[in-house]
């Protein structure tokens, strides 16, 4: 095929995919800077004639008449951040230990344990809500970041362990043997050889865990009720009142809620690819 024609077609395809990716997001952002009148106009205003940052101002510098949800949105952003980071940090530490044990240290029942751990993830989360709620209520953990962290940990660990195990598996065993010969104990090997080499894998695992924790909605909805622990997904859902739907604020909340995960993903994007590679390709 003619080289120029081929390039042209490829460029068009790339443009098509980029449109697919960006159009919805663009609409989200445009909606967040539109006034209510423009949002509700027909024909549709693709570019707002009177763009306004009022929605963002309501969230960051709330004035008197601003809804409670908007006023407290910042706090929910912070709560989400605290919960997601804690879950990520703990998962990486606890999970990497477990992954190493499963892969290198020939444990009895390791196959069973793996299946068992993965098995806990098979039950739909809806069913776990009520029993966990009772548990949290008794321990006075309702409406605290702690209960969210604990819950998300139990969700994230199985997947994280599996991922990290795959990473550790790619490290040639000779490296470890060499270290053992040099006198390192198992734990020292883990700390000095395994972890540094699998750093990319750890980063990508951490990223997945962070995204999953940031994303979680239903448990947060049921377990939290005040800004002491409310997370961003819950706040976004609250822009819908009993009758009134505050579309502009919802879109704005959406943009703000998407920024941290998107930002982190872009920063660590190399590791995403290597993460997916190790999980998938080496498989």
């Amino acid at each position, binding site marked *: 095929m003619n080289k120029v024609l081929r390039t042209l077609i490829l460029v068009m395809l790339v443009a098509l995919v980029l449109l697919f990716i960006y159009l919805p997001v663009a609409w989200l952002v445009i909606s967040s800077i539109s006034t209510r009148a423009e949002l509700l106009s027909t024909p549709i205003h693709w570019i707002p004639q009177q763009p306004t940052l009022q929605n963002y101002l309501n969230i960051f510098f709330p004035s008197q008449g601003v809804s409670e949800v908007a006023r407290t949105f910042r706090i929910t952003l912070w709560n989400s951040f605290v919960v997601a980071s804690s879950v990520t940090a703990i998962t990486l530490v606890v999970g990497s230990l477990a992954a190493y044990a499963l892969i290198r240290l020939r444990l009895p029942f390791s196959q069973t344990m793996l299946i068992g751990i993965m098995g806990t993830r098979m039950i739909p989360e809806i069913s776990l809500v009520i029993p966990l709620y009772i548990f949290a209520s*008794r321990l006075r953990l309702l409406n605290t970041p702690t209960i969210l962290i604990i819950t998300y940990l139990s969700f994230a660990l199985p997947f994280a362990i599996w991922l990290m195990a795959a990473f550790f598996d790619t490290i040639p065993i000779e490296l470890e043997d060499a270290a053992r010969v040099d006198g390192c104990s198992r734990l020292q090997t883990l700390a000095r050889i395994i972890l540094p080499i699998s750093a990319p894998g750890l980063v990508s695992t951490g990223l997945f865990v962070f995204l999953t924790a940031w994303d979680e909605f239903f448990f947060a909805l049921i377990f939290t009720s005040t800004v002491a622990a409310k997370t961003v997904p819950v706040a976004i859902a609250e822009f819908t009142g009993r009758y009134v*739907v505050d579309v502009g604020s919802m879109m704005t909340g959406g943009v703000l809620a998407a920024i941290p995960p998107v930002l982190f993903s872009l920063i660590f994007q190399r590791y995403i690819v290597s993460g997916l590679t190790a999980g998938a390709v080496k498989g």
Partner: protein
Amino acid sequence: MKNLKTPFALTIVLALLAGALGCQPAQQAGPATIRVLTMEQAGPTVEEMNAIVEEFNKANPNIKVEIEYVSYDALHDKITTAMASTPPAYDVFLVDDIWYAEFAKAGYILDVTDRITKDMRDKIFTASWDITTVGGKVYGMPWLLDEKYFYYNEELLSQAGFSAPPKTWEELVDQAKVIKEKGIVEYPIVWSWGQYEAAICDWVTLLYGNGGRLVDDSGKPVFNDETGVKTLTWMLQTIDEGITNPASVSYVEEDVRNVFSQGKAVFATNWVYMYDLVNFNAEQSQVTGKIKMSLMPAFANSGVQSATINGSMGFSVAATSPNKDAAWKYIEFLTSEDVQNRYSAHLLPIWQTSYQGESLNKLMGYTPANATTVPMFNEQFPFAHVRPKVAYYPEASKALQLALQLALTKQKTPQQALDEAAAKWVELAK
């Protein structure tokens, strides 16, 4: 590995213990803590509600009230979940009208019939007791009295040559035809007939306005009788004749407000919240200053002067709360005449006496909207009807919503659709 089986077994036991830890009841000490679950936008603002709580706490040093706000959608699920633990996570919660029967049957809410004084009975609107009464027993204090009102755009109406709003639905159709002919608006009336609870609300308004009922005295569904079919057929006719905005079959209350606010309809029915936004908020409405309310029409020859849907809520005590008396004390305080009169800037009091004399003037003076909505409420509320207090209402409602939708989209005849829904209701009642 033989000698490792024990440690593994121990781990499992440990894990189970950790879980079992959650099974010990929590200890209670100090002043009785009353946890209240309510909704934002449920009458008074958050600041006002918090102020009431503070007042109560000061006046009752051995009770400490803590209040939490969630969205309406989450309220039902949170109550269900909260009642699963003992002691329940909340002692007091806001209950929507349509959940009362369900919660009463499930044993979530306390029977407070004996705690209602004669004074309360007499002075509070009779129609509001309908909300919290299930099977003759009272389960809570009414709160956030709301009903659907009849809104009309006075300017557009007078352009068509009419000086007064319609008193019957037949009159409305006649007026609408003239409006349409004169090209003032394309679809004179807009409804919320989408497949949601909103459709049931409009259905109740129209059905009862035709002398019909949803269920008979024994609780059997009768909405599929002659009156019901007639009413549903009438609804379809208005769409066919171009009087009802056809998009109504997918609309909820907010959509009605949007259409009405843009001056694209002359008549609409909606809850009280729409009035302020549509008549006084220039940012959200293009028809400010032109909107009035009048008594909800009914059908001529039905023997009914007016009928509308009663969509209020109530505050109830958790049946398994360890502090029932304290919890009830708070509810009594919250709904007392005195407190309600002082905090009625955003809340319609449940006391009939508040709508008389000096109190009335004060009420009307709070906001520009109140000047209209308060007397209107007083006038309309006696005609407000609640939905059936059956424990299976959520499922039943879905069946009826589906039936209305199928009929309105002409996928089934009104008789067929309503019959199927009635059959489902009978099945659920078993």
